[in-house]
């Protein structure tokens, strides 16, 4: 079992609720996003065009391989209370029924798959804090499309979260088909992903 070296500043109870309320009330600049990452509120600009291009291609390629009753969404904030987090993944696969359940919030733990595409400026968080957060939430699959990795773009599929730590299921380069396991059971084309 892996325990983080420093526990996040807010884990549960009163201060988590206060942080959530502050995040909800925040007046975010036009087009920007606000996430909570390990107890801090991070306000960042809209992603770049190549980033958006990749997310959109993945969105389209996931649609035909979704299990019955699930859909893929953008712009959904998912909560990870145990890691003091509210993330907005580039893509998230959730049960359709959840979107109609009448509650305003979504728990990361209900997702079947989350996808993050890196850009300069958020790569570190996607690789470290979000990796830890999604694993802690028990999201079965985390697809990290790292456009800005120093050794060249790399795609990593993480899965089988145990005690807040993922196993690396597969890594590949842009151009390699991404082998999504159960419940998708399909390889996703990455040959048109722009680098850097």
């Amino acid at each position, binding site marked *: 079992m892996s325990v983080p070296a420093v526990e996040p*500043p807010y884990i549960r109870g009163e201060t988590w609720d206060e942080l959530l309320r502050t995040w909800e009330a925040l*007046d975010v*600049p036009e087009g920007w996003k606000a996430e909570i990452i390990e107890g801090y*509120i*991070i*306000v960042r*600009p809209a992603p770049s065009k190549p980033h958006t291009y990749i997310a959109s291609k993945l969105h389209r390629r996931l649609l035909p391989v979704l299990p019955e009753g699930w859909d893929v969404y953008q712009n959904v904030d998912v909560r990870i209370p145990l890691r003091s987090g509210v993330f907005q993944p580039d893509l998230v696969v959730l049960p359709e029924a959840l979107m109609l359940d009448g509650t305003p919030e979504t728990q990361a733990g209900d997702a079947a798959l989350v996808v993050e595409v890196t850009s*300069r*400026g*958020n790569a570190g968080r996607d690789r470290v804090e979000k990796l830890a957060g999604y694993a802690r939430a028990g999201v079965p699959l985390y697809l990290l499309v790292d456009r800005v990795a120093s050794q060249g773009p790399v795609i990593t599929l993480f899965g089988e979260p145990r005690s807040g730590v993922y196993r690396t299921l597969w890594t590949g380069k842009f151009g390699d088909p991404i082998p999504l396991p159960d419940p998708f059971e399909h390889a996703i084309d990455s040959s048109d992903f722009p680098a850097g």
Partner: protein
Amino acid sequence: MSAAATDFPALQPDDWPELVRNWEELDVPPGYRAEIIDGKSITLTPPPSLDHAAIASLLHRQLVKRLPEEYETFQNIGVAASGQKRVYIPDLVVALRDQVCGPERRIEADEAELIVEITSPSNANHDRINKAAVYAAGGVPLYLLVDALGAAGPMVTLFGSPVSGVYRTLASVKFGEPVLVPEPLGLELDTSSFPS
């Protein structure tokens, strides 16, 4: 410790002005600090602990009493190292009174005479390494680090004489011992009441 420990992003003049403008205009929730720590996004930090606030207040009072008349002491003003795409809000800033004026919320790093940072559990390494490198490279003559969390026990370290982005250690004392701050500020700081 060297500046190489910190990664300064390549200058992209097109996004820095927009980022700083958003920082200036952000409606910051009461008690939170808004900083640009990665050159790409704004990080909002929740209010620190009471121990943290107590140390800041003790130092503030001493500085007000002991500084030469032409200096002013601030909590909650921004310090920008524009060349490094950082804007921090240090725990305390000492500057010549006539340098601190105008409608904006920040001064440039080389307009500060002394900066004080007090470590918190979630950001101690950031204060010790990243901020020290930025302040040194930005030309801040004196950097006082109040660190209750280091391996050597609660310590106060005064850094100065920055050369090529690296400070020299001028003094390093345990809580309880005095710290001599050299000219032109020319005063002694008392650390005997610091909670640890």
